[in-house]
């Protein structure tokens, strides 16, 4: 059974976002980390990057493959998680906490309305 915190919003491409004021913290879901299995490298965006919702913003590499991570919303990257350089395995261990990927200042908050809530994402992954 996949872990699904209630207060997050979810993209169909398995990213979550936690919004506090104008800034959202983004990571990938427990379902996604389980599908990826052992994460060995995380390629994060640069601070200051302007990103558009739905475009590739990061890459997470597992033993066998590189997986694109998509921005759930548009905006400017204000912080990235440097802990993932030394410890990429955090993505498997704590996908909603210590393995947040980046923080983004939202440019179009209404985009959040297109994201799913926990129940909607749960239905998508067949939970």
């Amino acid at each position, binding site marked *: 059974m996949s872990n699904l915190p209630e207060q997050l919003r979810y993209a169909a491409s398995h990213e979550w976002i936690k919004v506090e004021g104008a800034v959202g913290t983004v990571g990938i879901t427990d379902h996604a980390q389980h599908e990826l*299995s*052992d994460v*060995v*490298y995380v*390629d994060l965006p640069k601070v200051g990057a302007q990103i558009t919702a739905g475009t590739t913003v990061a890459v997470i590499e597992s*033993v*066998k493959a*590189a997986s694109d991570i998509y921005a759930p919303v548009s905006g400017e990257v204000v912080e990235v998680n440097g802990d993932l*350089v030394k410890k990429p395995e955090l993505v498997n261990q704590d996908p909603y906490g210590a393995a947040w990927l980046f923080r983004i200042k939202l440019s179009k908050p209404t985009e959040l309305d297109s994201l799913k809530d926990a129940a909607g994402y749960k239905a998508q992954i067949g939970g």
Partner: protein
Amino acid sequence: MTDPTTLQKTALFTAHQKLDARLVEFGGWHMPVQYGGIVEEHKAVREAAGVFDISHMGEFFVSGPNAAAFLNGLLTNDVAKLADGQGQYTLMLNEQGSVIDDLIIYRQARDQYFLVVNASKIEEDRAWMGKKIPAAVHFSDKSHDYSALALQGPKALEIARAFFGPGWPEPKRNEITTYSWNCQEILTARTGYTGEDGIEIFFKHEIAENFFFALLEAGKPFGLKPCGLGARDTLRLEACLPLNGNDLSDKRTPLEAGLGIFISLTKEANFPGKDVLLRQKSEGLKEKLIAFRLKDKGPPPRPHYLLFQGATQVGEVTSGAPSPTLGYGIGLAYVRADCATPGTGLDLEVRGARVPVEVVKKPFYKRVG
């Protein structure tokens, strides 16, 4: 994309499902890529033992008074060097000297040989051999009858001894012996594809699931884990064992791949491609298969990534992965011969960015003691 309904299943398919394996398509087969996780399985093989389903591989029997001569005129290594019960790694080349398949051939008796070939090449190998086989030599493709397991790791032999009991004729390195398990004849060979000690076990389908679960049970106290193709690939890459289709292909000769010790250019028998190899040896190689590693933490190398020296492309990756044992990315690549010396610094292109790598001596990993 292969239609999943046409994929073949080994006799252990149900067993893999019972063990909650993640199944993927490999060479036309449903195979487990992992059970618990690739890194966990890889470490089990390095530290204790793992067992792999290798039933998708091909098993050929070649027999008759002219079998040895036929095989020596077909394969690169010298079959005449084999004693009864001995095996050797060898290659089958086309007329251009490039690789059709790499395989292990075992001499069971003077007129009886057992060949284990790659799953993806069974049909092609059979067709190639079938065209060349003389009337007096008997060839039999028994791939559909046989299942096989690879039991590998520092504890593999201990587990085998405990499982088979004192009556088991333990093969020495590269040897193969016959044994009766539950009244069924099985073959056990002291060979493997992981860089660890271990055995490969061949038996008929009918006993596969019983054998597999019985072995897992016997190995549990030693830390034996079922392992999938994901770990099989990272293990063989650390040991610099080539993979046909990646590091070997019908575009490359085994000399370019650095496999000279498995080619006898001095044996009298003339095998397809021998003349090409002799010429290549005297002219020198233009490209060589090298091992390289990332110098720091970074993205793992992947097949088809390009290698540069400054602005010039000098090579292409054929195999690449993160190394669970070593903790950095490793790979094999064909590069221009003048860039092949260990210590040479090159740049790996990953998603448009250049990552520094270094050519290193093979293998990346070798068990000591």
